């Protein structure tokens, strides 16, 4: 579905991603982990069009989308959740959901918002409150619910568990797994290695903007070198 091939990218003249490749097959959960500054979020932003790659290809369904704007990529069935969730904190819960359906018809939007309210009754009760008044975990759930309004085929998530209480991390990941079972492919950048290794079908480790590992969570757990270097574990600990 999504394939990044030898991508180089960065900000201004600062190269962050030096050569990274990965692929996300239909219906899979793929994780990207690595130390701080490895280029994980930069790679995700490049895949979604916030950044134009300096070199390499970003292929979606076999077509190169490098240089396309994020709104064009959204229309091709890809959603994106930033680290902070990207909610409009000063707008109401309902308006956030309405904006989530910006690209679809009014009838489809109404139906999708009703589905969100049925699945998360809390949001129906608090639909007139500003989104910023929700707790951190509720905001993250609302951001995920909002991203689903347009029924994307692939969702890119930048550290969905960041700054959340363990209770909410479990809830978020349970929700993501349920969505994946319904066919949604997920590409997740994550610092919480245990959380992502539990759900991912495949994991990529990035270091200094380059691929350092590519395999299944079981293969990663079986590699002493990777565990030692990137998971901060001592030999024999795992």
């Amino acid at each position, binding site marked *: 579905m999504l394939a990044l091939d030898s991508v180089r990218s960065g900000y*201004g003249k600062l190269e962050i991603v030096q050569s990274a490749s990965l692929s996300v097959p239909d219906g899979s959960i793929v994780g990207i982990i690595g130390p701080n500054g490895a280029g994980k979020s930069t790679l995700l932003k490049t895949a979604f069009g916030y950044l134009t790659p300096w070199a390499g290809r970003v292929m979606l369904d076999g077509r190169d989308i490098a240089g396309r*704007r994020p709104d064009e990529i*959204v229309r091709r069935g890809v959603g994106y959740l930033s680290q902070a969730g990207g909610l409009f*904190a000063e707008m109401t819960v309902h308006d956030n959901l*309405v*904006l989530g359906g910006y*690209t679809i018809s009014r009838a489809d939007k109404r139906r999708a918002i009703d589905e969100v309210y049925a699945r998360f009754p809390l949001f129906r009760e608090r639909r007139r409150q500003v989104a910023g008044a929700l707790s951190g975990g509720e905001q993250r759930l609302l951001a995920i619910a909002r991203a689903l309004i347009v029924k994307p085929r692939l969702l890119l998530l930048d550290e969905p568990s960041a700054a959340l209480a363990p209770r909410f991390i479990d809830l978020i990941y349970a929700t993501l797994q349920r969505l994946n079972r319904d066919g949604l492919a997920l590409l997740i950048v994550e610092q919480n290695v245990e959380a992502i290794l539990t759900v991912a079908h495949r994991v990529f480790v990035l270091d200094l903007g380059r691929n350092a590992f590519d395999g299944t969570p079981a293969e990663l757990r079986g590699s002493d070198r990777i565990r030692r270097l990137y998971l901060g574990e001592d030999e024999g600990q795992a």
Partner: protein
Amino acid sequence: MLESLLEFLIQGLVLGGLYALFAVGLSLIFGVLDVINVAHGEFFAIGGYLAFAAVVLLHLPGALGVLGAAAGTFLLGLAVYPLLIAPLKRRLGGRPPGPLYLVLTLGLSTFLQSSLLAIAGGDYLRVPPQVSGILDLGVTAVSHQRLLVLGVAAGLLAALFAFLRWHPQGLAVRAVALNPDAAQAMGVNLPRIFALTLGLGIALAGIGGALMAPLFNVYPAVGFPLTIKAFAITILGGMGNPAGALAASFLISVAESLSVMVMPSQWQNLIAFAVMIGMLLVRPYGLFGRPGAR
């Protein structure tokens, strides 16, 4: 005393309508694009010239003059983003623009003023009122043209705020003002929203120019003092806060109008700027803004 108070209050409200048409657009543009449009006053002047061309040169009804000014300045506003701001943004890449947008619109202001001078000359042009007559309120009287300015301003601003509140494109405009990256992730086309915002904001100034043309004379620099005053209003209301700009427009205009009852009229124009300087020193985010907001 009561008659004077009522008269000055009505004058203040009419002036507030004009200020609001002007300042709300300026504030909306700043909030969405982070651009201080120094050329806003020149679009006000263009609105006046378009009304003059329609009514005096083409002998069309006054209402068509206002509609022509609205359409003409809206189209000009739509063109500002793709022709000027987007190319500069592309050149800058991801680097912060610093004062470059300010310099760009200052250049546009001078270019438009010089163009108006070259095309229409520097004479003061008169436009007949769109409506004639005077409403006698007993204690005072007010011309129908002034009431028209106030009524159209109220109607347009109510329509604008309803658009921003309920229409999907209006929600998108607000979303871009709050978080452009997140808005893009919703599928919002940023260049289109930037162009639309400039079109709307500039059309409000153009309509103001057409409506005020019968009350002021039309000349190339007619809008420049308004631009400066609108800066004071937007700072009072909170930069990038159209609702704050609306409230601040009436606060300033009524204060200016009533001030002539207690001080010489030549001090009237100083009020807005004294308020602006005071606000910047004491509460730079304005009466209705919050620290950290744009």
